[in-house]
């Protein structure tokens, strides 16, 4: 029950942040993907950096078992193929599965079409799962593998290092990119 309330609060906060940073604007997403305006990419990188450093520092204090980590498996072919398909839809529609819900909340009509497309996409996926998806996702499945395991370094150190690299890159990159 507590989790249902906390996740609702997290959702309201996330929705408000996405709206304020204009990530629910498909034109803004397209400008970011054209690399003309990097504000959303910098927003995401900042989120990841702050989140990773905080989560792993907290883990160092309370222990891994007190955290609710949930690592997704790395089945290389399916994850990469899914990402490539996702990217085409992201570039075309300018929405991701969460930002279209935020867009609907702020009254964007095209966001409703994106949600409808998403629901039908989920239906087709569900029907295609056993015959097409499951065999592909069995290929090159390395399980729940993390960067610290690959590098053979402590997770806290890798989180701080990765966070610092992300923040450094974000700090150096311009937000508005001048096109020639």
């Amino acid at each position: 029950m507590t989790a249902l309330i906390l996740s609702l609060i997290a959702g309201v906060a996330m929705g408000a942040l996405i709206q304020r940073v204009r990530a629910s604007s498909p034109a803004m997403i397209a400008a970011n993907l054209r690399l003309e305006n990097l504000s959303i990419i910098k927003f995401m990188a900042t989120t990841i950096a702050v989140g990773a450093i905080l989560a792993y520092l907290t883990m160092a204090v309370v222990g891994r078992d007190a955290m609710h980590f949930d690592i997704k498996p790395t089945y290389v072919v399916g994850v990469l193929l899914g990402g490539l398909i996702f990217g085409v839809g992201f570039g075309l529609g300018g929405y991701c599965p969460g930002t279209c819900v935020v867009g609907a909340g702020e009254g964007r009509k095209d966001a409703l079409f994106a949600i409808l497309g998403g629901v039908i996409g989920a239906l087709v996926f569900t029907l295609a799962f056993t015959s097409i998806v499951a065999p592909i996702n069995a290929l090159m499945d390395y399980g729940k593998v993390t960067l610290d395991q690959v590098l053979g370094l402590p997770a806290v150190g890798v989180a701080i290092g990765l966070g610092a690299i992300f923040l450094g890159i974000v700090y150096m990159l311009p937000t508005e990119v001048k096109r020639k």
Partner: protein
Amino acid sequence: MAESATQAPPGDGSSKLPTWAKLGAIFGVVSALSILTWGPIGVSGTYPRFIGAIMRRITPDAAHANPYLEKMGSLIKPETMLVIGLLIGGFLAARLAGDKAAPEHVHPGETTSGKRYRDAFIGGFLIVFGARFAGGCTSGHIISGITQLSMSGLLFAAGVFATGILTAKLMHKGAK
């Protein structure tokens, strides 16, 4: 403490931080607190759980025979509440700020609102299909995934930006 706070120039320092940095840092705190208290944020799994909830009503036998719907489980989950929260958060933030979401033309080829709806619909189909293929989307794989140092999140992000950048640039040139 209160005295020193009033002596400081109002808004100095923090006001120099750009919006994306401030909001990104707050989102990072929300993301880490979620991992501490209930789990990593993620959106796309709610779409097939929604399909499952409908199919269990209309065709219960087919729903129970589908291994994917069985795996994804019921809609009564924190992730569903997160998605409901997104709708409320988007509504409240836009209302409080007085934002009117004006219709946008995302690509030059979208000369009518019908063409915008078409692109949003096809895009919506592909993002959820692709996300379920990979096991997560921008929130679950990229934000929560890389936050947890997951290799799958890094791999997914590489795929997304490769075709995302290519598609957005091609659409801008009007090439179809």
